[in-house]
Structure formats: structure tokens, C-alpha cells
């Protein structure tokens, strides 16, 4: 221990503040992880009987104490009959609770979750005869596997046969090749239709615990499980699948279900583009201010202004981006190059390019200040050493000064990334979208679509949390997305920190 008694309470106070900050950080991450990740756990389903004889099956949630007694929130699913998938129940009214193994939870393409029993299977409208429940479950899973194979075949056909021909057709000029391509397209489309007809073959008959019945095409099933029948490894597997689907799929049901892949992609791409834009500008500006400009009153004034720009609220940058980039530059670009598409704007509306430019502007002061500090730390005799060997100022800059300031430049980039990745307000003005399932990077020329709108984790949190119709369903997603945003920022920063560490390790520490 380096804290000695004689120094009074100050060392303890300082250590205490550090401990408190760390504790708060840990608490935040624990909260996000706990609430967010628990959402994907295949929790058990209970069948509840109330004192009035009515029954329902649901996943129990949190409890609240009110004047009448304790109430518990249940996730019942089955929105088409109940109107809402949530139900508050007075605990005192519960007569009986069971956990039948055969209860299923089905995530559907429409209407949210179904919770109930499988009553039968249909093939081409004919009921299948199956002796018992286990055989039925096995048959259902086999048919789902068949469907998955058909779907993969169809997607492959689209990807490998249809898409290239459509692109060729767009470029083809002579009638002969057009006719050939159209013929081939028609065959491929017919194959796809045949596959889709096969996919529509099976239906599953479902029955809720209170007797409502429903026939659901297997195609509409996104995921199906019997949580009461699952052991721990199976549950862990289902949890992993759930997390993976959250990370890799697009959102559904007005962002209250499904995954966040386009938002992850948009966030990372936005930050990378922003870095690529801000790094050269910031570094060059800092080099000019510190190494080239005459160190007079004007330079000092510019320096002070730059430092103050770092304190301007980010929404102001958003307004600037909207006025200058989107309406000003974007509008002109549309008039000059995309006039055939007007009045629908191409660059004259918010998009990836304008958003990353706005963020680059926002983080420019941070990069300039950090780089300048790095440059100012380099002792003059280092520069003079190179000059004294006959190097020009440019050679001195390039070969001695910039390499020595690289770690400081990366520090600037780290700070910039940390600031930009968490910004939401300016993005709302310059191009973030509530839903843009098409990511801005694909196989279609020019591959990186800078004019497209994009999704962003920060905005997604805002949208899901405040604009969704189903708050109870949205809340876990908000936590999970927030955790993800923190992790993405951490990962981006870690990359830059490792890079800086690598650079520092190469030349040891700066001699002081």
C-alpha cells in the first residue's frame, strides 16, 4: 500500500472516487447484459388456471405490488384472439399452475408468438395420422428441415441464376442475347415457383389451451421450441441461436422483433467512413497549424477556435450537415448528375455519405487537438537532427515528425471514434433510417452505396424504445441493443488501441 496515514483523507477520497466510477460502470454493463441477454433464454411456459375456471398458457414476467395485491405480468402470445400478447394477473386469483412438456412456443412471421399445443399436421390439406405426441413432434421437425432445404435451394437459385441474368439483361443490347437471357430467366423463375409450391405443402394445426384452433403454414414458422421439454444443453443451444439470430438478421414487426444486423453494419460502416474522412483532414490541419504556419496571433486564434468547436452541441453539426451537405451540395449534385431521377432525390436527401461527413466534421477538432499535442511534444532537436543532415522540411516531417506523432494521431482517432459512434442526434437530420434492411454495401455496382439511408444502433435504441407500439416487447431489445452498441464501440476502440500499442512497441517509448 502506498497510501500512508499521515496524508489525511485525500488519498482515500481519490481512491474512493475511482472505485465508485468503476462500480457504476460495472453496474451499467451488468444491467444491460442481464436484461438484454436474458431475453433470448428459452424460459419455461406455465399453464395457469384462474379462479373463474379460465385457462391460459404464458411465460411469467415481473411482478408489481398494488392496492389489490400482487400482480404478475404474463407473456401470453396469441395476439389474434387476445388482442395483446401481455396480461396482468392478480396472483391471488391463480388456482393451479402446470408445466406440460408438450406446450410449444412458435415465433411466427405474422401475429407474433403462438403459445399452445400442436394438434396435428396437414399435407396438401389432408390430415396426417400419427400415433402419439412424440411421433408428431418428430414429424413436424422433419418437415421443417425439409422446408429449410427447399428454402436454401430457392435462395441459391435466386442468387446464382436469376440475379446475374437480370444484370446481364440490363447491359445486353442485341436482340438475340436478350431473347436467350429472357428464356433462361423464365426457366429459372418457373423452377423457383415450383419450389415455392412445394414449400407451401405442409401446415400445422395449433390449439391454444383455451380451445382456439388455427392452421399455420410451416413457411410462417421462424422458430419453434418446447421449452418445458428442454434440458440445459438444449436451452443453451437455443439461447445461442437466439443471440445469433439477433445479431445476424434484420428487424421485423416494426422493429419490435427480429435482429439488428443492418444497424450493426450501418454503425460500423459509418464509423469507418467517418474515420477515413476525418483522419487525413485532421492530421493535415494539425501539421499545418503546428509545423508550417507562422506562429503568430492568427494561428493562436485559429487554435482557440478549433478547441472551442469541440464543445459545440452535436445537433448543431446535424443542422449544418442538413443545410450544407444535404440541401446545398447534395441538391447541386442531383441537378448536375442525377437530373433524370428528379424530383426523387439521389444525393439531395440524407444518406451514408452526408452522415459520415457530418460526423467527420464533428470529430475534426478532437483529432486536430490530439495530433497537435503529439506534435508539440516532439522536441525541436529531433527536427533539427534531420535538418542538420540536409533534409528538407518536408522530408523531416514525413520521415521523423509524423512517425513520432503517430501514436498521438491514433489517440485522436480513438477519441473521435468514441465520440462519433455514440452520436445519434445529428444523424437524425442527415440520413439515419428507422428501417433500411438493405445494407449500403453489396455485390451490386458500385458496391458501396453512399447515397443510401442506413440503420444505426443508437437510433435503433431510440426508435425501439420510444416509438414502438409494444413497450414490453421492446424493452429487452433496447437493453440488448444498448449492450451491443457499447460492445461495438469497445471493439472499434480496442482495434485502434492495439494498433497504437503496436506502433509504440516498434520504437520503444519516446525519449524525453
Amino acid at each position, binding site marked *: 500500500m502506498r497510501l500512508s496515514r499521515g496524508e489525511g483523507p485525500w488519498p482515500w477520497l481519490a481512491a474512493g472516487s475511482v472505485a465508485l466510477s468503476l462500480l457504476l460502470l460495472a453496474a451499467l454493463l451488468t444491467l444491460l447484459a442481464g436484461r438484454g441477454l436474458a431475453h433470448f433464454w428459452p424460459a419455461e411456459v406455465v399453464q395457469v388456471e384462474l379462479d373463474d375456471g379460465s385457462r391460459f398458457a404464458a411465460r411469467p414476467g415481473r411482478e408489481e405490488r398494488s392496492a389489490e395485491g400482487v400482480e404478475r405480468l404474463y407473456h401470453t402470445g396469441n395476439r389474434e384472439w387476445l388482442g395483446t400478447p401481455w396480461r396482468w394477473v392478480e396472483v391471488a386469483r391463480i388456482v393451479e399452475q402446470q408445466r406440460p412438456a408438450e406446450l410449444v412456443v412458435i415465433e411466427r412471421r405474422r401475429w407474433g408468438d403462438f403459445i399452445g399445443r400442436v394438434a396435428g399436421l396437414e399435407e396438401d390439406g389432408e390430415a396426417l395420422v400419427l400415433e402419439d405426441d412424440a411421433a408428431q413432434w418428430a414429424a413436424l421437425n422433419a418437415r421443417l428441415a425439409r422446408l429449410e432445404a427447399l428454402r436454401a435451394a430457392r435462395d441459391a437459385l435466386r442468387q446464382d441464376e436469376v440475379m446475374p441474368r437480370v444484370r446481364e439483361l440490363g447491359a445486353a443490347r442485341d436482340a438475340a442475347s436478350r431473347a436467350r437471357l429472357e428464356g433462361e430467366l423464365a426457366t429459372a423463375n418457373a423452377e423457383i415457383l415450383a419450389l415455392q409450391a412445394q414449400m407451401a405443402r405442409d401446415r400445422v394445426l395449433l390449439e391454444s389451451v383455451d380451445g382456439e384452433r388455427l392452421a399455420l403454414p410451416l413457411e410462417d414458422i421462424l422458430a419453434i421450441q418446447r421449452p418445458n421439454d428442454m434440458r440445459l444443453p438444449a436451452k443453451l443451444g437455443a439461447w445461442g441461436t437466439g443471440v445469433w439470430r439477433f445479431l445476424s438478421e434484420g428487424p421485423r414487426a416494426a422493429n419490435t422483433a427480429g435482429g439488428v444486423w443492418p444497424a450493426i453494419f450501418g454503425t460500423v460502416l459509418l464509423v469507418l467512413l467517418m474515420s477515413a474522412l476525418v483522419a487525413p483532414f485532421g492530421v493535415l490541419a494539425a501539421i499545418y497549424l503546428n509545423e508550417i504556419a507562422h506562429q503568430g496571433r492568427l494561428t493562436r486564434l485559429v487554435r482557440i477556435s478549433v478547441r472551442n468547436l469541440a464543445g459545440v452541441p452535436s445537433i448543431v453539426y446535424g443542422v449544418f450537415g442538413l443545410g450544407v451537405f444535404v440541401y446545398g451540395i447534395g441538391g447541386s449534385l442531383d441537378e448536375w448528375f442525377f437530373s433524370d431521377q428528379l424530383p426523387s432525390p439521389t444525393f439531395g436527401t440524407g444518406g451514408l455519405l452526408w452522415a459520415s461527413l457530418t460526423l467527420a466534421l464533428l470529430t475534426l477538432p478532437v483529432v486536430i487537438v490530439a495530433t497537435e499535442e503529439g506534435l508539440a511534444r516532439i522536441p525541436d*532537436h529531433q527536427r533539427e537532427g534531420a*535538418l*542538420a*543532415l*540536409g*533534409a528538407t522540411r518536408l522530408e523531416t516531417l514525413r*520521415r521523423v515528425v509524423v*512517425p513520432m506523432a503517430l501514436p498521438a494521431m491514433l489517440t485522436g482517432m480513438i477519441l473521435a471514434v468514441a465520440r462519433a459512434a455514440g452520436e445519434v442526434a445529428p444523424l437524425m437530420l442527415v440520413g439515419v433510417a428507422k428501417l433500411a434492411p438493405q445494407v449500403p454495401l453489396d455485390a451490386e455496382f458500385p458496391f458501396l452505396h453512399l447515397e443510401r439511408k442506413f440503420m444505426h444502433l443508437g437510433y435503433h435504441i431510440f426508435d425501439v424504445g420510444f416509438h414502438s407500439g409494444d413497450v414490453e416487447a421492446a424493452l429487452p431489445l433496447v437493453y440488448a441493443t444498448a449492450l451491443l452498441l457499447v460492445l461495438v464501440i469497445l471493439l472499434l476502440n480496442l482495434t485502434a488501441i492495439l494498433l497504437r500499442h503496436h506502433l509504440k512497441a516498434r*520504437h*520503444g517509448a519516446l525519449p524525453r
Partner: protein
Amino acid sequence: MLAQSATPANIAEREAVIDIAAADSCLEIQALSLAYAGTPALKELTLRVPRRRVTAFIGPSGCGKSTLLRALNRLHDLNETVSRRGEIRLEGQEIHAPEVAVAELRRRVGMVFQTPNPFPMSIYENVAFGLRLQGDMRKRQRDEVVEWALRSAALWDEVKARLGDSAWSLSGGQQQRLVIARTLAVKPEVLLLDEPASALDPISTLKIEELIRSLKSQLTLVLVTHNMQQAARVSDYTAFLHDGELVEYAPTDALFTNPRLARTENYITGRMA
């Protein structure tokens, strides 16, 4: 204490040292005055630096030694506040003349600073820095020059196995010798050393001093030092500066054993008592 400088070996070495006026001079400074933003730092300085000898500049802190040294390879050019009068001639050529390229001048007049300042690159690249600036050279040839320079700076044996390592991984004394090697690699005619050993331990200092003595067969050396013994040990001529003026300039033995002016004597004895 001065007896130390009069070892038989030194006497033999010094037999060549004769009157400055008669010596063959390499650098000639004529009525040089220099001021920082109007504040004079050098006043009407006139002196000749003999070729292939070690000339030491001594004097109290702030008397203008570094300023003079930096004037010799035009490092003041970058500082707009510096104003200068007078002439500096290298081999008879005025160094401020328009036809003199400053890069070329700095290659001919190398400079080593008080603090070691290796560049952020490998040991090899540090020495090759000046060579690369001069343009293409085949790798074989460059390797030879690098080895020669490192041998001349008495560093080769210590670093030959680790030429690719960062120069910042060397010790302070090794770094200073690396900087000397880097300067030697471009084959300068004059080497200016501004307190090259002030940041070093006694053993490293000794190595640098040996190095200075061995280099004088090839080039002209100018050494700024605060250490009287060091000036006495390694230099052939010594100039005593005070307040921007040249007070006394004589062969080292003469200046230390028999100073003409009381000011010089006070400084030398005051420091050495």
C-alpha cells in the same frame, strides 16, 4: 590538474599545433553578429577554425556557444526573429551566398546535439538516413557505408547483431555515438559537437572523447563543452567566449597554462578550483 593534458602522448600529438594565424583554416568567421529579436547574442566575432583539428568553444552558460555553432550550418534560417551580420566562409566560400544550397551545406557541416536525437526507425535506417536523402545508392554500397560509419563511431561491435532494432532501444551513450555515425555517413568536412557528452556517464564520455580524437585525422571538429578537463584533453585550440564576444583564442595548452587575460584565467580557475 592540467598536468593531465600534458601526457607524453598528448605532447607528441600537439607538436603539430602551431600558431593559429599560421594554421590552414577550414572555416573563417568574419565580424559575425547575431541577435534574437533584437537582443544581441553574438557580437562582432572573428575567428578561424583550423582544418583537421579539434577546436573547443568554452564559456559560461548563455554566452552564445550554441548560437555560434548553429550559425555555422545555418540552423538559424528557420527562426524569423534572428538577424545576422558578418560572414562565415567554408573553404573560402561564403555560406550565405545565394548559390549555396542549404541542404548541401548542412551535409558538409554536420551537427551533433546535446541530447541524443535518434530518429524513430531502426539503427540501420538511422545511419542510412542521410544517404537516402541523397538519392539512389545500391544496397551493397549503402551497407558498406553504414558499416564504415558505425565503425568510425566505435559502435559497430555493439550493434552489428541488432541493426534492425529500434534506435531508441540503445543506451544514451550508444545513441549519441549512433548520432555521430549518422552524421559521419554523409562524409561531412566539418563536425560540430554541442556538448555531446553532457548527458552521459563517465565511461560513455570517455568513449566519445576517444572518438573525437580519432576523427580529427579525417575532418575538422568543433566542440562546445562546459567541462574544462574535456576541452584540455581533446582539443588543439580553445576559444573562450563571454557575453557574445570572443575573449581569447589560442592553442589549448597555451590558453590553459598561460592565459593572456585575467578574465580567461578567472573563468578557467574558477571552474576548476
